[in-house]
């Protein structure tokens, strides 16, 4: 009876109606033969109306049966028999009341039936959603979510649904999961992924058809994926199905958000761990390298001093000395950087006279490159700025060193210091007339370990820490550092600011 109902409700309704009416009529004859009261026959017909209303869809058949029942009773059981006339006018009242009662009971019964069906549907929906949620809670990864969603949606909507879940960067996966009948799932390749994502984005909240499937997007602010339904079956979906899809999509969105943030957190914890490990390793190595290096440096220098310049040992010892010195400053740089980058750098901030710091930096440069002439432009007034004098001096030395590496011997290098008009900060500029900075280097020049690919032929390959250290120091002071090519062409300039506090 249920199958018949789904396939052809109209047919079923009529059949039930006729069968019950016939049954009531036959029963009526039986009652008359047995000598029961006439009222019992009326009740039999009313019973048939109720049965019809219960077993048929909608209100129509119940109402039809009500009318038919009254007519049948009139025809078969009121004199004159087998006609629609009535001898006793009193029967009109019976007919009217019978019809009214039939109407009312049929309507009530139909309504009750509708309510029961709706409640059952809602219960099914709630059960399915609960099942989905339980499975999603257990899921720890995206394929698991796809699988659970495909299975539950297919089970409830009785079709072969599929699910696509994007990763935390919003990228679609290579495959998606589709249910294939009871207990079987397949992984299918997602073709033309970019086009798919674009089309999906363009759909509204209720989704739409994209090629093979009806897509229902899963959203929580941004697009997280989609539930895919075979488009033929999707066409037949009603309001109740949509409301289920909506709830399912929301649950899935929650689960996906959770998994995404879990994965992000794991990734960043891992990165932090790596960074810390790397820092510690560098620090340990550099520290152990320092002492023997300074021994090598010092002893090599002594040999140089002891030897005549014509002695081959002079040049050899000088070579050792220069290499050791270079290695030593490399190690010092690594140590500086790891110290500065390990959490909060400890600044020894004190008011310093700017020209003294500049002078100190210039003196250090003089020791490294005694031949270089560096111009200085510092304001006449005594400029006092709170800073870690040693670190800012190191910043200036690194910038000057960098300028010297990229400027020919007869080029110019200049330091300019100016107090800003707003009186809030002081600007330091190191400019040169050298090669300048290439387009590709400019955005990356302050990155740790970044070395430019264009390098003066003879120069030693640096490890790319000098500028990175400058940036760390300047920013720790609350200042900013930028690199650019000179507006008048022919060289680079590095500018950093320090707040006057």
């Amino acid at each position, binding site marked *: 009876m249920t199958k018949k109902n789904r396939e052809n409700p109209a047919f079923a309704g009529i059949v039930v109606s006729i069968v019950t009416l016939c049954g009531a009529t036959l029963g009526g004859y039986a009652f008359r033969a047995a000598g029961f009261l006439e009222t019992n026959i009326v009740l039999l017909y009313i019973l048939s109306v109720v049965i019809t209303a219960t077993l048929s869809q909608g209100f129509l058949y119940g109402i039809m049966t009500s009318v038919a029942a009254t007519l049948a009773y009139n025809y078969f059981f009121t004199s004159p028999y087998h006609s629609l006339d009535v001898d006793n006018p009193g029967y009109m009242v019976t007919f009217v009341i019978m019809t009214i009662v039939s109407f009312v009971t049929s309507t009530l019964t139909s309504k009750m039936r509708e309510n029961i069906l709706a409640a059952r549907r809602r219960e099914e929906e709630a059960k399915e959603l609960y099942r989905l949620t339980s499975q999603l809670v257990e899921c720890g990864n995206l394929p698991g979510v796809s699988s659970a969603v495909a299975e539950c949606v297919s089970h409830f909507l009785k079709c072969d649904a599929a699910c696509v879940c994007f990763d935390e960067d919003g990228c679609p996966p290579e495959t998606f999961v589709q249910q294939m009948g009871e207990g079987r799932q397949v992984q299918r390749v997602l073709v033309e992924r970019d086009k798919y994502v674009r089309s999906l984005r363009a759909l509204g909240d209720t989704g739409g058809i994209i090629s093979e499937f009806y897509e229902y997007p899963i959203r929580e602010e941004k697009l997280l994926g989609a539930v895919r339904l075979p488009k033929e079956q999707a066409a037949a979906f009603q309001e109740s199905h949509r409301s289920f899809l909506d709830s399912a999509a929301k649950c899935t969105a929650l689960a996906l958000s959770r998994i995404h943030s879990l994965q992000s957190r794991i990734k960043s914890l891992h990165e932090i761990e790596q960074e810390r490990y790397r820092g510690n390793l560098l620090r340990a190595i550099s520290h152990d390298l*320092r*002492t*023997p*290096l*300074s*021994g090598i*440096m*010092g*002893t090599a*220098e*002594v040999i140089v*001093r*002891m030897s005549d310049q014509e002695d081959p040992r002079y040049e050899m010892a000088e070579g050792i000395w220069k290499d050791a010195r270079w290695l*030593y400053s490399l190690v010092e740089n690594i140590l500086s950087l790891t110290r500065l980058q390990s959490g909060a750098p400890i600044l*020894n901030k004190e*008011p*310093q*006279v*700017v*020209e*003294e*710091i*500049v*002078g*100190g930096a*210039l*003196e250090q440069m003089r020791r490294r490159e005694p031949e270089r002439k*560096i111009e*200085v432009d*510092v304001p006449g007034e*005594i400029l*006092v700025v709170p800073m870690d*004098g*040693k670190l800012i*001096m190191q910043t200036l030395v690194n910038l000057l060193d960098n300028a010297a590496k990229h400027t020919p011997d007869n080029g110019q290098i200049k*330091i300019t*210091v100016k107090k800003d008009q707003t009186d809030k900060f002081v600007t330091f500029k190191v400019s040169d007339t050298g090669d300048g900075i290439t387009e590709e280097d400019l955005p990356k020049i302050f990155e740790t370990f970044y070395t430019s690919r264009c390098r003066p032929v003879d120069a030693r390959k640096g490890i790319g820490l000098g500028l990175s250290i400058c940036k760390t120091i300047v920013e720790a002071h609350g200042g900013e550092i930028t690199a650019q090519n000179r507006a008048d062409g022919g060289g680079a300039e590095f500018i950093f600011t320090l707040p006057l506090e």
Partner: protein
Amino acid sequence: MTQYHETILVVEDDVQIRNFIVFALKSEGFSCITAGNAQTALKKLVSEQIDMVLLDLGLPDVDGMEVIRKVREWSELPILVVSARDQDKEKAAALDAGADDYLTKPFSATELLARIRVALRHLYRSALPKTQAVCQVGELVLDMEKHAAFMEEQPLHLTPMEFSLMSLFMKNPGKVLTTSYIIREIWGNGYGTDTQALRTLMAGLRRKVEKTPANPQYLFTEVGVGYRLRDV
């Protein structure tokens, strides 16, 4: 080249650095006595004839300051302290406690010998009965009697305070003077940490003496410690 003959006590626990220092000094003619810790150092100071001490501030057993204090109780012999890069406060404290100068690791043999030379000159000059009337460092000339100063034979119009400061430097060319020492000498006791006044005074002096105050040739700043006039 001056032939040195003094005996220097090298107090350094790190073997490689100690060896390097000894090589450098011996090659210049100095005699060396070594000690790996403060105890040994003090013992040697008492038992041997020592002209100068090279003292590492990072000794394992006793704080370097203690050694300085003990030595200064009975001797004015020059003490040079050797420190690591970030030990500014320790350097300044050591100098105030009586050390004469400092070296920062890593230092070259050149720097080491330069500092030793300055310290020795100071030692011998203080043995002289009277102070000189005219001091000269490079092109900078100070006439103590006439209270006049000249740079490249041009007169410098120094204020009395600037002159005092300049003469303080001239008495110690090549040697670092801590800020607290200078303040004490110029202003007297009780102005302990008024570095602002000294900064202003130094800046003014620089502007008169140097062609480019930001690129000095005579008056150098030792950040975190003090100032130094260039050596003769």
